């Protein structure tokens, strides 16, 4: 109610006008870039060399830029694995004490295998011990960081791939046909560091990579799927090409701003990509992630779903294995079809992961009851209480 709608609506209109202008501007700039793209299509090696020298995170081409691969033949039989997660943050204001909840949805759907069962499960775990609630620097126990906000996110991400690795291992043990493991988003998740020590990244990335390793050992390809990708890794590479200074750039020819500004990889690569086709793979060169990921360095390709361009990231051991990569492509095509635009198995996993408001209330009640049984009175902070019971 308190929104100043009059004010906001004016601003929304202004935004609309700007969008229109931007769109028009965008097409113009893409035209400008055509030439440059055409020039570099085959000079991918040069681009790759350049990429190694740039500090920022960029994409590293592994083949001609205009590589376009159609969807392979559909697999008659395969198993799709997916996980997704959600969390409940420890509520400082809540009276229920400190704990967090991570809910992971696990999905296994065997296709073309009628004798096998489908798994749709949620696994919820509560974090409440000291070790759960605080991340301790192993080298200096005095340094502790509470497991909240982005760190909890990171923990959740790790739990997701851990569950995925569990699925992959059991799947592999059955000896059934090909399987593909999917997660939503990116393999290259971020963990903010607190200077001067690097213990957070160590903790999370190591755990994460360990799970990827399990999947590699199980020979189950894993991929991260990002719908309507806004990745700019390739754009950043091109920025490096022109130095990022519009004045000096041939393309921009002294324009006000760099033509690449506001464009995404999808803009550049996606224009002649047809439905179900994918681009070639690009390695992601990230100074943050590379030290930890090793053979699990992330590669990506763009995939046209028909309605949008998605970005699919795979570890190197998948990117370099043509069969695995092919299976990932084929499975994604099938899954997106079944999921009406988004991989069905991921959607199922998301369904199982989501924590609804009523779920939160139930949990809260459970906790409160337990505390009450122990004689601990749980009361929300004044601020939260005021939020809960609004007075005038």
């Amino acid at each position, binding site marked *: 109610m308190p929104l100043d709608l009059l004010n906001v609506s004016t601003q929304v209109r202004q935004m609309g006008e700007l969008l229109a202008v931007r769109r028009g501007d965008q097409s113009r700039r893409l035209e400008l870039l055509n030439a440059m793209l055409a020039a570099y299509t085959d000079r991918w090696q040069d681009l790759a060399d350049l990429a190694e020298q740039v500090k920022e995170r960029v994409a590293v081409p592994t083949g001609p830029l205009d590589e376009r691969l159609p969807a392979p033949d559909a697999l008659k039989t395969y198993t799709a694995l997916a996980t997704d997660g959600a969390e409940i943050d420890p509520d400082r204001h809540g009276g229920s004490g400190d704990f967090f909840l991570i809910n992971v949805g696990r*999905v296994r*759907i*065997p*296709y*073309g*295998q*009628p004798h*096998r069962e*489908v798994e*749709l499960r949620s696994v919820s775990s509560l974090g409440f011990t000291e070790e759960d609630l605080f991340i301790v620097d192993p080298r200096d126990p005095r340094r502790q960081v509470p497991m909240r906000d982005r760190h909890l996110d990171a923990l959740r991400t790790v739990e997701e791939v851990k569950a995925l690795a569990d699925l992959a291992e059991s799947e592999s043990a059955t000896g059934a046909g090909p399987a593909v493991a999917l997660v939503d988003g990116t393999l290259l998740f971020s963990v903010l560091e607190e200077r001067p020590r690097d213990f957070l990244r160590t903790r999370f990335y190591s755990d994460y990579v360990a799970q990827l390793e399990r999947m590699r050992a199980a020979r189950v390809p894993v991929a991260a799927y990002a719908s309507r990708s806004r990745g700019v890794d390739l754009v950043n590479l091109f920025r490096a090409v022109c130095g990022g200074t519009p004045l000096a750039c041939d393309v921009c020819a002294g324009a006000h701003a760099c033509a690449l500004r506001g464009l995404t990889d999808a803009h550049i690569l996606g224009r002649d990509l047809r439905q179900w086709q994918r681009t070639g793979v690009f390695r992601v060169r990230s100074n943050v992630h590379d030290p930890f990921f090793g053979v699990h360095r992330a590669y990506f390709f763009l995939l046209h779903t028909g309605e949008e361009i998605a970005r699919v990231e795979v570890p190197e051991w998948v990117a370099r294995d043509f069969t695995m990569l092919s299976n990932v492509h084929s499975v994604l095509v099938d899954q997106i079809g*079944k999921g*009406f635009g988004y991989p*069905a*198995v991921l959607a*199922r996993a998301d*369904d199982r992961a989501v924590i609804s408001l009523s779920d939160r209330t139930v949990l809260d009640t459970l906790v409160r009851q337990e505390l009450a049984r122990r004689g601990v009175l749980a009361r929300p902070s004044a601020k939260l209480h005021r939020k809960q019971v609004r007075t005038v």
Partner: protein
Amino acid sequence: MSALNGVHTDQPAQDGEVIEASTTEFLAQAQQLDGAPPFGSFVQVATDDGLTILGVVAHVQTSGIDPGARAIMRGHDDVRDDLIYQENPDLPLVLRTTYRALVVGFTEGGSIYQFLPPRPARLHYSVTQCSAAAVKTFTDTGLDYLGALLAGSEVPTDELLAANIRVTASMRGEPQAFLQHAGKELAQLLHTDYGRLTAILKRCVLAQGTYA
């Protein structure tokens, strides 16, 4: 598979679980997708304290488990009907069949009563189809329960009455005698609405399209 109009077959009793319950009805989820007992048939829920609640299946529905999730068309090319289920093996886990049963009576301590029980069914307890013997015993007591079916809300009452009468007639030994008896009972209940009475009676056709 089941034959016309809920005529009694040799299908094993379908199980389900109560997921909502009130004094006048209960909602059960069928064990298997599309596995609800036939419309108009008798079902029962036993509780631990000797009370068994009897209901009549009044409405069956299949939809997504998530309240917000809607089924959309999945057929394409030659893939139709059961092939769709083969192609999407996760469907049975995200769909469910539920059925509403109107409470028509209960048994307690060996006695049968055809009015509402003192307590509703218990959640998560099993729902089973009533055997032919149980149906016979219940309907031998009387046909007062037809009034409860007539009073059901948001169910197709006329169809329900006809379906229940058909199912019960075929489960009892002498269908024509029951048909007449039930018909007369209905005539009493609906004596002010002749048109409705005849509409229901016309639907009480036994197998082979006969009434006797």
